[in-house]
């Protein structure tokens, strides 16, 4: 069958009205209420895996990275299995950047961890975040509009959100893509350090959906 014939058939189908079953559940709401690039990053207060309260305001003057994670997500696995995420954490925390890994998976969903499990994950995968924030109710996730794991945010020394989105420009679960991908987080941090504008301030994150609670 030729393309023309197919288009023709498709045109006829218009009058027949292809039935589209649209199903979904849950509430429609704005995905991203608080976080806007080049605007002040929303202030938050969250408990980390060592029981300490972490606020954004405490890190004024420092670059802050927020990294949404889920230890069962294959896209997270791409960046931890390859050592990519850990090496970024080590490199930048070594330069004074505050790296906050956030877990917004609700209890009973993939990636949910309690404090002890979060610390065990950090140890077993050789991760080096400044802290792991536990967000089982999804408050921090919804505040920033985190949709995927990994979903990355970079906040500059004045508390402005200067990057949000994907970790890099190759949306795949294949670790062999990392070597030739452009890392947006690296580009954002390097731009801040060089006193330049972040060239790509927003991208679409790729990965697993954040496993939020349904209530």
């Amino acid at each position, binding site marked *: *069958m030729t*393309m023309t014939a*197919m*288009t023709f*058939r*498709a*045109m*006829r*189908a*218009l009058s027949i*009205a*292809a*039935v*589209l*079953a*649209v*199903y*979904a*559940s*849950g*509430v*429609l*709401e*704005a*995905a*991203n209420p608080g976080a806007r*690039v080049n605007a002040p990053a929303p202030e938050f207060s969250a408990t980390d895996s060592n029981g300490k309260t972490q606020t954004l305001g405490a890190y004024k003057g420092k670059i802050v990275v927020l990294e949404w994670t889920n230890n*069962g*997500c*294959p*896209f997270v*696995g*791409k960046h931890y*299995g390859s050592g990519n995420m850990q090496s970024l954490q080590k490199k930048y925390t070594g330069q004074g950047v505050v790296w906050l890994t956030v877990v917004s998976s609700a209890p009973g*969903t*993939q990636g949910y961890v309690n404090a002890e499990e979060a610390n065990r994950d950090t140890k077993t995968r050789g991760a080096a975040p400044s802290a792991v924030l536990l967000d089982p109710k999804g408050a921090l996730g919804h505040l920033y*509009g985190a*949709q*995927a794991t990994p979903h990355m945010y970079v906040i500059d020394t004045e508390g402005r959100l200067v990057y*949000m*989105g994907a970790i890099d420009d190759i*949306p*795949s*679960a*294949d*670790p*062999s893509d990392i070597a030739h991908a452009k890392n947006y987080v690296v580009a954002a941090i390097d731009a801040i350090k060089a006193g330049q504008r972040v060239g790509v*301030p*927003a*991208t*679409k*994150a*790729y*990965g*697993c*959906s*954040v*496993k*939020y609670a*349904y209530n």
Partner: protein
Amino acid sequence: MIASTCTIVDMAPHRNPMLQSYRPGNPMPRPRHTSTVISLIAAAFILVSSPSMSRTEDAVAAPDAPVLVRARMVAETSTLQRGKSSWLAVQLTMRPGWHTYWRNPGDAGMATQVKWTLPEGATAGPIVWPVPQRFVARTIVGFGYPDEVSLLTAVRIPATFPFDNIAIGATVSWLACEKVCVPGSETLVVALPVGDTAATIDPRNAKVFAQARRRVPPRAPFKATFSMDAEAIHIQIPRAILGGLAKPELTFYPFDSSIIDHAAAQSTVMRDRQAELTLRRSATANDRMKRLDGLLIVKNTGSQAARALDVSASAAGVSATPPSAPFKTRPLIQENSRR
């Protein structure tokens, strides 16, 4: 994927002698292949395609994990004709509760990808995507296919194709999600005789193609335009096309995943001659966008039946004035839960 995955390290056609068929300026005698050769070609494919398992898949899939997606590839015709296009279908059948993704996977997920391995001169067109379903998990929207999907692609054989058989390879990669997501991929092969006469329909596959085409959105038989401001994207369509609907509801599913906030309500305003659909733009939308391509879903309020139209709206100019009351809206779709 899990049980049946293989990932090809390098399947460039020039590396595969079985597929190295014709080089311009180096005329080759046309060999007479037999059906034995077809199986040889297929066997070569399987040999070439078996060596490595993807590390990602190893990491997530237990050896006894259930098959989440079964993949196969079928041709509409039992022969292919030189100088013509023929249709192939990559059919994915999902385990109940699982889905794979549309070209725009939504806020997360990953579009199914097909990488073709074709003899020199043969070409594959773009995937013809059926209308997807929209999934909402709180604020995260996905577009995809539960149950089954057939992705159609036209493959063209050059008029000068020197062989009497062809092996067409497709490495299909997908992300299957239920509550969790598991990536998978598989290499599929179709081997067919090639001739100079009109290709004959393969009756065994007629149903797959008929079903797939019923789900392919037709092109909109009207012109659409769009405009953008700081907060929103507005799509204008002729009001006349909604004539038969008492309370029309419009929804837009963009092909590009980075343009709109998929979870935001979409509102329709009726003007004199136009219906205008307003979408909340995302932080990643490009002001200089010239075309906005996607599916326009048209339905009557309260009705389950909907029409999906393939719309390519052209830029009507970027408006400097912000919209008045842009999102004072109801959710556009009456979310009818099947789950």
